[in-house]
């Protein structure tokens, strides 16, 4: 095995024209693509939070909402799996938005529908800067969320 010695390493670096690693510099900034991915993760956390709250308050909605919530949990798992966490700095799994729940069952369904529509719009805005495989995941999740909005607009909770 080749081991670098205090005398050979500077010589090697000088010969190779390499300045060597800047060991004291700050960690690299999070790339725009990773930022978008982290926003998508947070958005799924927020959606799941509203679904949990809605089911807790209006248990009669559970048969309709539980399958949709389960799909959001699947979305979150897939998005979360794409995040490469910096060593020792895990990505926070936190809810960043806790809106007040609507006062009636119908209002809550409308609130969820609006949240799904906003999620579709946000997911579409992430497409352009994403890698091909991540763009496909975003597009698939957007399609799923579009169907959620349709289901919630079909007289549920009225």
């Amino acid at each position, binding site marked *: 095995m080749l081991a670098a010695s205090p005398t050979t390493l500077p010589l090697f670096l000088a010969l190779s024209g390499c300045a060597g690693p800047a060991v004291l510099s700050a960690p690299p900034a999070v790339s725009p693509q990773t930022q978008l991915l982290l926003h998508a993760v947070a958005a799924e956390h927020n959606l799941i939070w509203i679904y949990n709250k809605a089911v807790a308050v209006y248990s009669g909605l559970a048969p309709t909402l539980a399958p949709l919530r389960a799909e959001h949990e699947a979305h979150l798992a897939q998005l979360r799996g794409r995040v490469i966490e910096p060593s020792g700095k895990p990505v926070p799994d936190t809810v960043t938005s806790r809106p007040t729940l609507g006062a009636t069952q119908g209002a809550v369904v409308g609130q969820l529908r609006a949240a799904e529509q906003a999620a579709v719009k946000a997911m579409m805005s992430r497409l352009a800067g994403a890698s091909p495989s991540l*763009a*496909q995941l975003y597009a*698939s999740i957007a*399609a*799923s969320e579009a*169907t*959620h909005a349709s289901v919630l607009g079909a007289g549920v909770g009225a």
Partner: protein
Amino acid sequence: MSTEVTALQGALAAEHAAVYGYGVVGAMLAGPELADARADWTAHQVARDALEAMLIKLGATPVAASPAYTLPFAVTSAKSAEQLAVTLENGVTRAYLGLVAVSNPTLRAFAAQAMQAAANRSTAWSGATQAFPGMPA
């Protein structure tokens, strides 16, 4: 052939199949379901024409429809016709997912919108949503 043209041809082939398939679907339905099938059939014809125009603009010859298609299962009732509609929409969604992978942002957005339309039609026929429309199971 460019990646964009290949993906567009894939989407067009799926739309051709859907246009054919909805002819079979409609033959087994009546009333509001038939009206729904007609509306979806028209939507696929519009999408087919749009894809052909895009391909021509790129200097490619759009893939032609087959004279006939082998159905994935026998369609002998309204229920199996609705199952065929779901199968057709899922196939179209998969094809547009391929188009999402191209780097052109306009085509990506177009394909993602088309996925949403197809996924909504699939849900309307099946009554069920999917976590990952178009993605391999």
